[in-house]
């Protein structure tokens, strides 16, 4: 939740100056009062979907030095995995990179249906990853919720009233009734389409919000944890959930990170996805990540995993096969 009382009390040194107050909150933005380093009073607008606002911690998005309590952030992220995002309406709504990713998918569907989404996926991700990623993304709870959200914008309202949907990154507008009809049709269509293409059940899109790598990786992409802090984050995750490559859901977690890193890298911003890749590699999950041109930009191998005496997912799986 965005806690206005907390925002009113913010007083932090930001890269641009000093943030010392809350000016207001709109549909998409939180506006903070800032005294610029040259003394000029300015307003600083930051998108509401930033994780720090929702868990009430000052992330690196606002400050030049860590302004949060790492233990508390870890406890709150753990809470997110335990509730499966139920308390926030979905972790994807409060973690900016995920919000932007799913919003982009919905906006492509709204702009040109499945042909548009598939064409964009093929051109940016390539055929192989695209063929794996699109069914996975479309079978997530995040996409289902977003379509349900649009499908019921006419509830209790005049269908002719206009509304803007799909969040701050890729919004689109229309009459409530027409948008709701479109979303209902799209939901039905996707249900049939997913039955036909049969996403790999081992990918377990239904477990995404229980996946520690998804939640901590999202936090790492959305302004939390310095590189120096990542080893402690890995320790916390390991203490809490065990060494992830040995977790019963390790394959699914690895697939989640692999698909999302590639989709984020190709659809949105390659640099942002690298924090998820780095955390995954430190936890023993190694996979290739491509950029929009199809070049491999990382395989995580250069990143030292935290427990060199513990196996990577690959080693765990090879062991299982041999055994």
């Amino acid at each position, binding site marked *: *939740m*965005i*806690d*206005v*009382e907390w*925002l009113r009390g913010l007083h932090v040194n930001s890269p641009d100056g000093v943030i010392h107050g*809350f000016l*207001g*909150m*709109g*549909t*998409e933005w939180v506006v903070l009062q800032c005294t610029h380093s040259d003394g000029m009073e300015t307003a600083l607008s930051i998108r509401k979907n930033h994780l720090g606002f*929702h*868990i*009430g911690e000052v992330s690196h998005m606002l400050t030049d030095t860590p302004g949060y309590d790492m233990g*508390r952030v870890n*406890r*709150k992220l753990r*809470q*997110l995995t335990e*509730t499966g*995002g*139920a*308390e*926030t*309406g*979905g972790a994807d*709504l*409060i973690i900016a990179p995920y919000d932007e990713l799913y919003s982009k998918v919905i906006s492509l569907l709204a702009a040109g249906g499945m042909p548009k989404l598939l064409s964009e996926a093929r051109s940016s991700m390539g055929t192989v990853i695209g063929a794996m990623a699109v069914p996975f993304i479309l079978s997530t709870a995040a996409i289902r*919720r977003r379509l*349900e*959200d649009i*499908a*019921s*914008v006419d*509830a*209790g*309202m005049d269908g002719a*009233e*206009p*509304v*803007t*949907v799909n969040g701050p990154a890729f*919004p689109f*507008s229309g009459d409530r009734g027409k948008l709701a009809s479109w979303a209902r049709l799209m939901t039905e269509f996707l249900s049939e389409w997913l039955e036909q293409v049969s996403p790999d059940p081992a990918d377990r899109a239904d477990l995404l919000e229980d996946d520690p790598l998804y939640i901590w990786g999202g936090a790492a992409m959305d302004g939390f944890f310095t590189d120096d802090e990542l080893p402690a984050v890995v320790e916390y995750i390991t203490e809490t959930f065990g060494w992830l490559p040995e977790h019963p859901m390790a394959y699914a977690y690895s697939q989640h990170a692999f698909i999302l890193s590639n989709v984020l890298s190709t659809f949105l911003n390659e640099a942002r996805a690298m924090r998820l890749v780095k955390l995954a590699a430190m936890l023993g999950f190694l996979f290739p990540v491509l950029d929009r041109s199809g070049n491999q930009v990382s395989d995580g191998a250069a990143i030292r995993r935290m427990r060199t005496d513990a196996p990577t997912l690959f080693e765990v799986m090879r062991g299982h096969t041999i055994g």
Partner: protein
Amino acid sequence: MTHFDWFVPGYDGDPTQESSGEEWHRAAENQEGLRVKEWDVFLSHATEDKADVAVPLADALERAGIRVWVDDRQLRIGDSIREKIDEGLSRSRYGAVILSPNFVAKPWPRRELNALFALEEGGTPLILPVWHNIDRATVLSYSPILADRLAANTNDGMDEAAKKIAAVVLNDPTSPAGRLLGLLDAAADPDDVKSFLLSHPQILGYATGGGRNVQVHGDVSLGDASGDLFVGTFQPTALSWSWYLIMLGKVDNHPADADDPLNRIARQVSQMRRWTANHLFDARSQLPDLRSGFSATIVLGRRAQLSPEDETALRDFNDLSVGTRARTYDWFADAARDSR
């Protein structure tokens, strides 16, 4: 006659209109929020006291969170003091009169001065005398009524004088903030607090960051659970509503009570969120555009009555919880004061 009656005609411009001051006050609150008057206090002073007393006192009052108006047209010989103060009170909740040697040296009609205080009989003081470089004997010889009505003395320093005035203004039992504090101090039933808040949506708007134009719904059923107060803000950019739930525990609850009131209510909130996620259309038929991840605050207990165990329970809850926050009822009291 209530103490509001005498300035009603001046406010609405119709001196012939008869109305109950209490009714007018309520109507004005509903129309304009808690800021019924533009200022909390206006300062009345002799011309000679402006620079040395009125302006520094006004600055100190502003520092104490009081909205203050220093009339540019200071009191001069021959002015009708009653007229000037009437004028001030038409825009301010209180008048502070600086009683100084300069003030008492002027030949104000005593009759008018005394008449001012007669207006307050049976009610909360409206005129707050501030003594400046003057002793009781001098004031007594000038006006026995004034001598008994010391509100503040600048001999204690401007900040101290301002603090005393602020204490009167901010704790006015007839103001919404004062009435709310009265309810909380009496450990009122949460339903009574809810009724009060429903009729003062601006308090909820300020507390939740929704501003003055919020819509508030009480007792909204979402499945088997019911939300005490849903505060809605219309977002003009998205042309849609966003909602904030407030759940009320007991005013005399303690977060660390054996029956674990915080987590008990938090479970109800979770239940409502899950129901909303699964019945979005039905939920939105009651509250348009409601999302299952609505923000929520659980309110219970009073800040001053928290034991160390209560503080730990509150802190632990807030450290762990995402999407729901726990606060004491002082959250409302602070919002009522700050939203004036």
